[in-house]
């Protein structure tokens, strides 16, 4: 097989959600001398981008997105030991912190955003569910992200998003980050009322906005 054929096989394994086959495909690519960084960026990542696009178009559902992500994780386990130090750090990534706010144990929408932001080139720190405002502030202080994404499914917990924004203000960090909020009950009017930068209508629209912010940051706007 040529190098291009190995890269294509990696892409295909992701888009076909081939949990059983990915390890062998990845190992074959490494044994054939395919550059590990290339195997990721030109093999598996384009596969994930394709799955993400099908999700955006409504052809794939959450299950496909999750399983494709799982296939990629299995492929990474094989490829990571072949990565040469420094090569993977060619371009510093913009960082995004994602969290489901305190008192809320729903993470489906947040996880879709985490997956899609990762595919779009963000270094995503997923803080999980039921995350208090104080922990988010600590993480923002330590990681200096471009974006903080807050998620809530319950109208009873979405008020905690406002607490996070207030805590960021108190810590003098609000102006250093873009805050995007989302979740079933969250409306633009509510997002405005708590001082968020954007209310994501859905995960896909939210990721587009984050990409736009990334573009603006790169252009120094």
């Amino acid at each position, binding site marked *: 097989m040529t190098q291009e054929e190995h890269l294509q096989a990696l892409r295909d394994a992701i888009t076909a*959600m081939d*949990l059983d086959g990915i390890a062998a495909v990845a190992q074959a690519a490494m044994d054939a001398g395919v550059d590990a960084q290339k195997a990721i960026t030109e093999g598996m990542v384009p596969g994930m981008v394709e799955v993400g696009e099908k999700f955006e178009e*409504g052809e794939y*559902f*959450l*299950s496909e*997105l*999750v*399983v494709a*992500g*799982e296939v990629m994780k299995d492929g990474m386990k094989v490829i990571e030991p072949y990565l040469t130090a420094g090569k993977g750090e060619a371009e510093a990534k913009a960082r995004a912190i994602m969290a489901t706010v305190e*008192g809320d*144990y729903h*993470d*489906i*929408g947040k*996880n879709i955003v985490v997956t899609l932001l990762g595919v779009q080139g963000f270094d995503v720190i997923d803080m999980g*569910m*039921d995350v208090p405002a104080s922990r988010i502030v600590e993480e923002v202080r330590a990681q200096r992200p471009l974006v903080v994404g807050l998620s809530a499914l*319950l*109208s*009873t*917990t*979405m008020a905690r998003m406002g607490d996070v924004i207030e805590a960021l203000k108190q810590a003098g960090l609000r102006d250093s980050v873009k805050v995007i909020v989302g979740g*079933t*009950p*969250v*409306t633009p*009017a*509510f997002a405005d009322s708590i001082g968020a930068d954007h209310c994501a*209508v859905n995960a896909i629209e939210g990721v587009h906005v984050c990409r736009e912010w990334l573009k603006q940051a790169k252009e120094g706007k």
Partner: protein
Amino acid sequence: MAEMTRRERILTASRRQMADRVPFFHNWRHCQQGTVERDCRNRGMGLSWERPSYTFTWHGVEVTETYETYTTAVQTLRRTFKTPVGTISLVEKRGAGTGQWHHMRSWQDVTPWQTERAIKGPEDYKVLKYMYDNLEVEPDYFPLEQAKDWIGDDGMVWDWLPHAGLQLLMIDWVGSEGGRFFVHHARYPDLVDETFQSISRAYEPLWEIAAGSPADFFLLADNIDAVLVNPKLFKRYFMPEWEKCCTALHAGGKLVGVHMDGRLKALTGLIAETSIDVVEALHVPQMGDLSLGEALAAWPDKVIWTGFPGSVYALGPEATKQQALAMLRDMGTGERVCFEMSTENLVSNENLAMLTSVLEHATLPLTPEKIDAIERSLR
């Protein structure tokens, strides 16, 4: 038309017949008690109450519960299921007020969350399978008889049927956090399917028990959202189970609804193929993705019990009024629709009073002129 009782109104609409006005009712587990609630009920708001017609007994399963944290503000409880083939355990976090209010809701109306799931890996499925292979379902009609007697004509008592097999796995045992259920379904399809089949077999007596229940209406708790339940899963795991339920219950003239408060657009055609009578807790955009008009057109043989969006309640009475009027305008003549004041949230007195003010004069058939008159009366 003579004025119907609240119970007659809900049942008439649910049977696709013309009620005297749009039925509206509040679910017991979200409903306040007091001055405003009484006033709204006097102005036509009904009550709904859910109770089961069955009990479950796991034979050969030792269930123990231990508090890992206990304060009146929060409790963390480990529940362990010990069987001859192995042991599984889960951890549940309960907020303040759990057990002191309706159902297992906290003061903030939040149900206990599992912070550790019972099914952690493939080795745990055999335990769960054993549990459902040894589950006995028995009738117990007292809770329904009692509630029906108490509620009288003020509303409806329905028989609450549990999550069907796949939702039991996805919501109650495996969980969907981090896509966990989908990963298990992809990595261990045989284990998932075998366990699903055990649950399905264990529930066979449930449908016959329900058919003998004193309830007129039965609600499958399935909590459908197409983001989680995609069309392939829906067709394979839900439709056959619902058909078994509907076959048993329709034979006795009973009505069957399914709790579906998520995004349903991707399932529109498949839902139309099912035999269920009522799509319960439909949420219009932005919480859901189908408007009332779209839902009524997509499912001409089904009745919509629409939930009222909590995101609108959060914006106050004026937004509540505008949303309710918009929903009335999207209902055509208003047949085949009931309003549930809330299916997910507590409602403030101000919002409840406003929604009642909009709905109390919504006589059927609805016309644009009637809705305009309601709007003028509230200026």
